[in-house]
């Protein structure tokens, strides 16, 4: 097991180096006469490599989950979701998708690891964007749910296959390949989200709609929040 983890870490580093170089090369372009089309290409190169770097970093984190390095602490759900939507706003607009955000939670803090929760929401939203058609929207909602806070991401893409829904219902996804669930996906993002959710003792799942899918994570309200 330890050898496997070390292998993942080495592979992640090997993958990250060329991605970082690609990103840096794109940023290094000096256009004598800036053309909008070239700027678009540059932005896309930077954006694609940044997303890939993020996934490689998440894989590294998965390899380190067993070391218990990720502290659980009171985390502001809205702040995390705000960070993610700010980060992905450009990508949604660039791909002609709408990102609709609705916060109706009163509980402010949950017990989670900020970085891991950020990755879960990020991967849910990226997945939603990928499966939503042009000019359609994805919805990010935060709701109170008894002693938990629920973050859900709804897309209007193809329905989730039954076997994957069952895996999500069970609480976690064993391996990314089995989630070739929807066309054009390796399922890596959902696998990462599933692993991180499990580490944070959060409920994770999916709801099948006739016109799409919602993925959600439920996190316990931080007891420290009651002090305020």
């Amino acid at each position, binding site marked *: 097991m330890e050898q496997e983890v070390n292998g993942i870490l080495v592979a992640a*580093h090997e993958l*990250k*180096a060329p991605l*970082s*170089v690609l990103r*840096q*090369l794109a*940023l*290094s372009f000096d256009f004598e006469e800036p053309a909008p089309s070239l700027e678009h290409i540059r932005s896309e190169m930077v954006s694609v490599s*940044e997303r890939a*770097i993020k996934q490689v*970093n998440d894989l590294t984190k998965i390899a380190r989950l067993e070391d218990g390095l990720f502290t659980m602490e009171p985390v502001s759900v809205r702040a995390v979701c705000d960070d993610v939507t700010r980060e992905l706003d450009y990508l949604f607009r660039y791909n002609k998708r709408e990102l609709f955000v609705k916060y109706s939670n009163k509980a402010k803090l949950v017990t989670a690891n900020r970085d891991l929760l950020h990755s879960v929401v990020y991967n849910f939203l990226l997945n939603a964007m990928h499966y939503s058609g042009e000019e359609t929207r994805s919805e990010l909602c935060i709701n109170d749910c008894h002693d938990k806070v629920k973050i859900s991401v709804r897309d209007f893409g193809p329905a989730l296959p039954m076997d994957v829904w069952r895996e999500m219902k069970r609480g976690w996804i064993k391996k990314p390949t089995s989630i070739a669930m929807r066309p054009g996906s390796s399922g890596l993002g959902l696998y990462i989200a599933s692993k991180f959710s499990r580490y944070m003792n959060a409920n994770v799942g999916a709801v099948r709609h006739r016109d799409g899918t919602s993925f959600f994570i439920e996190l316990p309200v931080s007891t420290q929040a009651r002090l305020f």
Partner: protein
Amino acid sequence: MIFVIDDDEIMAECIARAVKKETKVFSNAITAISALNDEVPELIFLDILLDGPDGFTFLNELASYQDTAKIPIVIVTSLDVSNVDLSQYNVVGILSKDNMTPQEIKKYVDQI
């Protein structure tokens, strides 16, 4: 003169371009240490994972000589060094290869 020490040739070239000043690029710590005998740079951009002796070995070498101990160093790495005690070295900044920009690189040069 600014030194860039990185075993990734293209990354080193990207940093050198962003610096917009005269630079010398080294692919390993040993050749960079040798070059210090001839010239003391104003600033060094240093990668940590290098072929042969790593960036920390280079930092120790630098700190051990009076004339090089005060050279400002910017660490450029994809490793998380936030928990490493760098107080004994003259590290003026840390840039992550994951998200650094040419502007951030240039900012350190402008501060010299």
